[in-house]
């Protein structure tokens, strides 16, 4: 029963200050039994990856509502890979147009959770992927 708790970094890349969603997700993951670290606002991809390595997380969840996802999400994935942490699960959320999702997935973002996603879906998705 001494199962290792899933560790998640919830991050806000870019300059966007809307973190209601990020904080609600962080709380839901914590209530779902995970260890959650929230970076706060205005994180560069480099800062996010360095926090992910330092905290030794299984998952990085990023939230952007400003439209900068196409630039910043793939940069985080690439940097993780470059640092030998390509096995970290990367997921995203926010205002992400449907048509941008295939490119993000091709770049290595495992899943995008759009507006209206129930919290349980996110929690269960992560529990399912990290075993």
């Amino acid at each position, binding site marked *: 029963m001494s199962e290792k708790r899933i560790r998640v970094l919830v991050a806000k890349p870019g300059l*966007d200050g809307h*973190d209601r969603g990020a904080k609600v997700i*962080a709380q839901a993951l914590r209530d779902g039994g995970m260890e959650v670290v929230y970076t706060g*606002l*205005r994180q560069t991809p480099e800062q996010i990856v360095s926090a992910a390595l330092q905290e030794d997380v299984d998952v990085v969840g990023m939230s952007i509502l400003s*439209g900068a996802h196409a630039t910043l999400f793939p940069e985080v994935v690439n940097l993780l890979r470059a640092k030998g942490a390509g096995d970290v699960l990367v997921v995203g959320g926010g205002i992400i147009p449907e048509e941008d999702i295939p490119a993000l997935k091709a770049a290595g973002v495992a899943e995008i959770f759009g507006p209206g996603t129930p919290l349980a879906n996110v929690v269960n998705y992560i529990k399912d992927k990290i075993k």
Partner: protein
Amino acid sequence: MFKQDQLDKIATKKEKWAAKLEETVKKRPERQAEFAVDSGITINTVYTPLDLADRDYDKDLGLPGEYPFTRGVQPNLYRGRLWTMRQYAGFGSAEETNQRFRYLLEQGQTGLSCAFDLPTQIGYDSDHPLARGEVGKVGVAIDSLADMETLFNQIPLGKVSTSMTINAPAGVLLAMYIACAEKQGFKKSEINGTIQNDVIKEYICRGTYILPPEPSMRLISNIFEFCSKEIPQWNTISISGYHIREAGATAAQEIAFTLADGIAYVDAAIKSGLDVDNFGPRLSFFFNAHLNFLEEVAKFRAARRVWAKIMKERFGAKSPRSWTLRFHTQTAGVSLTAQQPMVNIMRTAFEALSAVLGGTQSLHTNSYDEALALPSDASVMIALRTQHVIGYEIGVCDLVDPLGGSYYIESLTNSLEEKALDYIAKIDALGGAVKAIEYMQKEIHNSAYQYQLAIDNKKKTVIGVNRFQMEEAPPTGLLKVDLSVGDIQVAKLTKMKAGRDQAKVKALLEKVRTTAMSEANLMPVFIDAVKEYVTLGEICGVLREVFGEYKQQIVF
């Protein structure tokens, strides 16, 4: 408000009625175990004069345009002039935004509202490394007066009023606006508009802060002082509950946290030596219009009454104009769904109606596609037409405060006021809004989490999300901001910078530095600098060096 014998009679009747109600509920069980508004106030089956027994009409309500302004800030309100229909717009380049502005003015919009991109809001030029991917995304990129001139090309700044959603670097953008208007041939005193300039709520929930609280409050006081002398019609601040609500606050928290921020600004300005009646009349507010229709109407009324009392009793303001809470309203962005987006038109219409029944001075109605992207021309048009329907077709603007006197509305106005005053007392005890930032963040986050849980467990219905879902084709016709906007903007900026008199730029930045380090007002120096095309990023860079940057505490 009612005679005792009337009340006694109603009380006797209501007692009998309550027994009947109990019988009815047994036969027709109620849909919910409890009914309550979002602020947690329980809703009874019906309201009567008994709920207002301890109230005094003159003291609590008064007439429109009279203290405590519960019923509105103007004696004739919309019978004189409808609210300003002001759609928030701005994206991509200054050229594109200029076109959207002119389109909105041609379509009957009566004032402009400018959205800036995030680098501009945080005081970075478009060529700053942190601006990568963000240039022109959520608003227009303004690096220098050159961009401002393009933005307002062929729009006479002495004739339209412009609201600018700019906070931390508000003084610099205002300086550019003044310089632009003067270049068009207008006098400073002829321009009219609003800067948001509300930094405390940036710390609490919106995130576009730059400097620590102390220098930020000094800049704000500088703006109050400068405007009271030079541009008397300018609204020097828009103290904003909108974002506090969007971040998750309840209606009662929205009133309380907004007015607590207001108290902090008034305190700071008085401390800097200004007279409350000098700047008080130019303070304006910005609220959210959310889904719980009657609660929202009551919220606007309660906010007006609480602020009037604060200004008169707490700060001793003498001018009735200092007592009035004038406000802009925007419908709730968080209430929009990506699912069945057309339903958002209805949500927005009801929210907008609550703002009008609450006596708003200006209004932005959200577009139905905003949970998906920035709004398209077509969706913006429907949003504006929604205001036209309310203003011209449905008759609600033919009298002032039509819901005033409703037992429920008055009772809810009272309850929201009480709740808000409780929160304000807590914030006072913590040492004021600046000291209570983390407290407010925590409260807002808890409310946001409860709200989401209520949706997830279906206590709260969101059509298309947890009820009445259906299969949908992916949306079409969404606005896309051209990815090349950033590159073009950076090229323009580089060229502009190279063409300046470098020695002059250096000297002006030095002037900004020395003034920042002194106690003098920074506004005249900002104006001198922007006139020579010193950029926003350069000026804010100097301020960052002098004052340092704010570091956010992480609360969740």
